């Protein structure tokens, strides 16, 4: 059974809904029209582009282009993590933490899944590798960005308390223990919530796609469970790495709070979601 292909007219019909939404936003002065337009344009262009890239990639199964694409995805995700933070760490470290944490978690978990769990030959079969990596990267990106934003923002707001605790002879690790915990929790929250409601409230995207593509629901469900577990592990490890690393950058060897290493608190324009 094949998927019913969509014609440009079908997509145009869906786009007209967004047009309607834009008009409404204009009438109500919500100021969202521009953002809806940009987000829709980005989605269309980016997805069409990746569609062609994937078609090429599937035709020539080779680890080289696969790694290239994976690297580009990682770099873009790293930039996005910075953009989503109100007070990001200045300099190369700010970018390195998010990117490094996502690299460590997403790439290792994806490799583990490809080599050990799925065991497709060759392991770099792009039909498995790219969707897996994409889902892991997208979700760890959300988790890492949320956690880092929470950490820097709370540290900024509670800087007097942190310094008071340092004055009383606590180590930097002790002084931020609660904040670190909160930050990691808020990074994990989206995936934990998604796991809690999966199948009951929401039908996850990949499973839906597989069912639309003609897989049996039971096969699709098993893959979805696998993905959820991988995402949860990847997000958890990635968030912990990022927060530890961030903490090291925000204190120096004399356990001093170094908030001047953060950029001032102006959030860049809201980016379109994944």
């Amino acid at each position, binding site marked *: 059974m094949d998927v019913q292909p969509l014609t440009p007219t079908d997509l145009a019909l869906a786009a007209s809904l967004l047009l309607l939404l834009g008009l409404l936003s204009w009438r109500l002065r919500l100021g969202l029209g521009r953002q809806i337009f940009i987000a829709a344009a980005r989605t269309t262009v980016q997805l069409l582009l990746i569609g062609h890239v994937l078609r090429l990639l599937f035709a020539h199964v080779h680890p080289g282009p696969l790694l290239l694409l994976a690297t580009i995805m990682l770099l873009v995700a790293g930039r996005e993590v910075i953009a989503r933070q109100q007070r990001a760490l200045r300099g190369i470290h700010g970018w390195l933490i998010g990117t490094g944490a996502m690299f460590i978690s997403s790439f290792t978990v994806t490799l583990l899944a490809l080599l050990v769990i799925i065991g497709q030959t060759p392991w770099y079969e792009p039909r498995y590798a790219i969707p897996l990596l994409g889902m892991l990267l997208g979700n760890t990106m959300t988790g890492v960005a949320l956690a880092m934003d929470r950490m820097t923002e709370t540290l900024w707001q509670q800087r007097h308390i942190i310094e008071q605790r*340092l*004055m009383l002879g606590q180590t930097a690790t002790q002084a931020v223990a609660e904040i670190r915990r909160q930050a990691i929790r808020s990074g994990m929250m989206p995936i934990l919530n998604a796991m809690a409601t999966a199948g009951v409230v929401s039908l996850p995207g990949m499973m839906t796609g597989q069912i639309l593509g003609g897989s049996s629901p039971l096969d699709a469900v098993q893959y979805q469970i696998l993905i959820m577990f991988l995402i949860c592990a990847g997000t958890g490890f990635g968030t912990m790495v990022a927060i530890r690393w961030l903490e090291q950058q925000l204190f120096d060897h004399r356990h001093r709070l170094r908030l001047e290493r953060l950029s001032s608190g102006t959030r860049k324009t809201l980016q379109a979601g994944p």
Partner: protein
Amino acid sequence: MPDLEITNLCFLDRGPYSFHIAGGECVGLRGASGTGKSLLLRAIADLDQRTGTMRLGEVQADEVAAFLWRRMVALLPAESCWWLESVGEHFADFAAVQDDVLVGLGFDRSVGNWHVSRLSTGEKQRLAIIRLLANQPHCLLLDEPTASLDQCSVSRVEELLTRYSQNNNVPMLWVSHDPVQLGRVCHRRFLMENKGLLVDTGVVQDGRSTTYSH
């Protein structure tokens, strides 16, 4: 006996500061607001980036971990922070706090269970002093310790801190805007002028005994 020796301490665009406070000696620090008195205390507590050496007794600041230095060289900020629910939770071991310290500042043991959200400014300040002394510091840096207190509490705090300093041979650096208070508690006075220039204005001339030992 510990004495505090500061040599060529520089931080931000200030310094170098070099001075010595003997064990059991109290040095007053005066100066207009904004001249950087609090910054100097922060630098001695090693909370800001600095250069220069600091020694307390046998201990060089750079040779011990920063948190150990801060346990020895205790800084009382002008405004204390309380982040947990009850007062007692902010102490490593509230049960170990001596009764005479609590009574000396007008509390009893039940204060450990008080809710932080219901403390007055003055109560917070007095409890911050108790919390600081509970660490058994070897040097005290006091940033306007009595600014928010009524006259009765002021004398109690002065008495408690002076007694602690004398009994344990602890050097004290006491920031205050009140020259009369500095006359009461200090042996020597520093004046911080504009741009953070520190002037030693010498021994206090009000007949207070200066029998602390060097």
